[in-house]
């Protein structure tokens, strides 16, 4: 095992020899791939060095210290890459992983459907074998960056006679084909961060089924757990993207496209950080009722941050005490956002009738009011989180199921006509 110092020296030496801001981004990424710096935590057989997460972290840090751009990593592409790495054939890895790392192709995630939201396994997109191809028909929704994507990770039903979780298979689908149409989906806050994707006799070659037929649910769980762990969730603008130089400009554009869907996320979280300043500006700081609401929001936000830190610390220390994290944090985030929205309303006063730049807060306060309803829905509704917390953390019994048996016999939503 190399030491931290050894890794840092090797990376530095390589960067000093190779990093140049006037190199085209793609060319640079090909070099990274070749030199195995694009994904050092991946196995040596597939573009990596078999580094531990800690070792790979040293590489990343050293890149940052040199101001050097790394492999493409922002947006859903990382979900695809890690899933393919875990479940793909050697052929699939060789075909799909390099263009992900170089940024040549971007990806989207095709999981949710209009008829299956909380109940993801109730999906009814159909995949039928025709010769050497799978023919896909159905509709997906909440697909981030689908209108830019070259490929998608897709779950579809290949067997309607098996129980719901067993008849699902996992595909890698080419988005650039006639049978696939991505339409932006506008939200109540005016943003269109997601797409609907319509698949009409879209084609996936048999070689692009990931894993075996019927293994789709198990593989999707991998993708979701990567998603939950925060991989591919880097939604903040990278400081490198603001630097001067040709390669930085190319990189900035890649990042801009990838993080565009997330620009309003700070507002949907409620912006507790703005409450005091805004209240001072509008004078609401002198209003006792507003003070109570602001204080409640600040207390919840601080409590949630500390609870999250404590859970992290417990995970690290391996303490015996159970550390209920994830779902509790998500429930807390919803509570904080709602409380912030209540406080921002009182702070805005008459200006709460206004939207956009007219709201006197550069559009941020009104966007909070109109975006907060999303936080208790996106990424798993509060209701689903409460199920998880009560069952997995508190150990309460699951509710009885009504969706066992052959999928075709389970009552479900009629497909949306569109």
């Amino acid at each position, binding site marked *: 095992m190399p030491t931290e110092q050894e890794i840092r020296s090797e990376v530095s030496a390589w960067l000093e020899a190779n990093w140049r801001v006037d190199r085209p981004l793609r060319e640079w990424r090909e070099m990274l791939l070749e030199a195995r710096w694009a994904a050092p935590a991946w196995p040596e057989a597939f573009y990596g060095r078999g580094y531990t997460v800690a070792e790979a972290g040293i590489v990343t840090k050293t890149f940052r210290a040199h101001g050097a751009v790394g492999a493409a990593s922002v947006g859903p592409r990382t979900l695809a890459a890690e899933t393919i790495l875990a479940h793909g054939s050697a052929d699939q890895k060789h075909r799909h992983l390099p263009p992900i790392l170089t940024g040549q192709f971007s990806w989207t995630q095709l999981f949710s459907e209009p008829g299956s*939201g909380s109940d993801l396994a109730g999906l009814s997109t159909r995949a039928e074998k025709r010769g050497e191809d799978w023919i896909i028909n159905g509709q997906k929704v909440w697909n981030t960056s689908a209108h830019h994507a070259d490929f998608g990770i897709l779950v579809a039903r290949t067997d309607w006679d098996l129980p719901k979780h067993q008849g699902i298979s996992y595909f890698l689908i080419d988005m650039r084909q006639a049978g696939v149409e991505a339409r932006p989906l506008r939200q109540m806050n005016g943003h269109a961060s997601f797409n609907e994707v319509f698949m009409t006799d879209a084609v996936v070659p048999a070689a692009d089924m990931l894993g075996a037929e019927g293994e789709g649910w198990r593989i999707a769980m991998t993708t979701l757990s990567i998603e939950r762990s925060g991989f591919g969730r880097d939604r903040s603008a990278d400081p490198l993207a603001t630097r001067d130089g040709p390669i930085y400009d190319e990189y900035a554009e890649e990042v801009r496209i990838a993080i565009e869907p997330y620009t309003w996320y700070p507002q949907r979280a409620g912006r507790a950080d703005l409450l005091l300043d805004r209240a001072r500006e509008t004078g609401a700081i002198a209003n006792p009722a507003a003070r109570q609401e602001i204080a409640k929001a600040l207390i919840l936000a601080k409590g949630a941050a500390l609870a999250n830190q404590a859970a992290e610390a417990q995970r690290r220390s391996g303490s015996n005490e159970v550390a209920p994290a994830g779902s509790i944090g998500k429930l807390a985030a919803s509570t904080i956002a709602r409380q912030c929205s209540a406080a921002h309303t009182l702070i805005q006063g008459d200006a709460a009738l206004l939207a956009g730049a007219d709201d006197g807060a550069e559009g941020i306060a009104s966007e909070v009011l109109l975006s907060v309803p999303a936080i208790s829905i996106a990424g798993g509704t509060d209701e689903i989180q409460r199920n998880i917390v009560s069952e997995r953390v508190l150990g309460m019994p699951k509710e009885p199921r009504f969706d066992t048996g052959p999928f075709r016999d389970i009552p*479900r939503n009629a497909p949306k006509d569109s």
Partner: protein
Amino acid sequence: MADTTNAIAFTEEQDAFREVVARFLATRAPAADVRALVEAGRPYDADVWQALAQELGVTGLHLPEACGGGGFGPVELGIVLEEMGRQLYTGPYFTSSIMAGCALHSADADAQAALFPTLADGSSIAALALDSLSDPARLGLSITASADGAHLDGTAPIVPGGLEADVLLVLVAADYGLGLFRVSAADVEISPLQSLDPARPVASIRFANSPAERIGTLSPQSVQRLWDTLSILLAHELVGAAEALLYGTVEYMEQRMQFGRPIASFQALKHRCADLLMEVELAKALAREGARVLASDASPTEIAHMAKSMASDAAMSAARAGIQLRGGIGFTWENDTHFYFKRIKSAEVLFGTPQQHREWLMTHLEATAHAH
């Protein structure tokens, strides 16, 4: 002039009237049409407005019969507004017929004779340009009249219905009380603002030596009564919106299948709907009592504070539930729920937040207790 009864139950005539209004709106101006109007940048359909005036006669429902009005009272207005809230009516009914119409009750007879007929037949649209929307104590402070009262200067920063109006009513603080002025929309600078509620446009109005006519004076008591009246009537609109959300959401939940069963069968969701119904029923009872008190000789102040704060809170609960219980689809532009949410959020502040009304209620109760 028809009787406005003070009984807690509606009369058969009132039930029939509601039926007519409800059917008209459901047919001619349903909530399902709001998106198209908003996307087209048209605040409302002029034909529907004319029909409201001519066929239903609701634009002048509460104006004197002598001036072409219906001579009805607050209970009937409440019925219209509940139904408009249910369908999220986008036209200037609340801003012109209600806000301006009620303010005109403090105008002198000549002005009433001049303005009521054109409001009643729908040919003119008025707006009440208040320079504070959430505190009656701050009314009229940022607009001044010239010494001879013939010109106004200043700004009403947020005027609901200001864009659609041809005539503006303006309150201006003076030593004699609050002066009520009439100004032609042609003589002011009207700037459209982005409205949180796209189904109720707002504008800022700037008066710059604008020719004006003083048509009345409001005593502190008349200002309070106007505020109480508007609060109670807005509460009706909120209750109608809340009921539409509640029943619409339940209907959606009965259709929507997840995990092999309608989501309406999940206990936690059922219980949320039950609590919501309770809230909405209480809010409705308070709003309707408010209309009855307005129709009586009693002071409406106490019930106005109660009705507006409870209606706002209940409607906000309904709006949140309407989105949450629909899941992702409830947050999309293509679904109607957000239009209700925006109407309700913006009405939360209009005429005072629930917190303000509760504080005002306590002040009022203390003042009346000490008066005894």
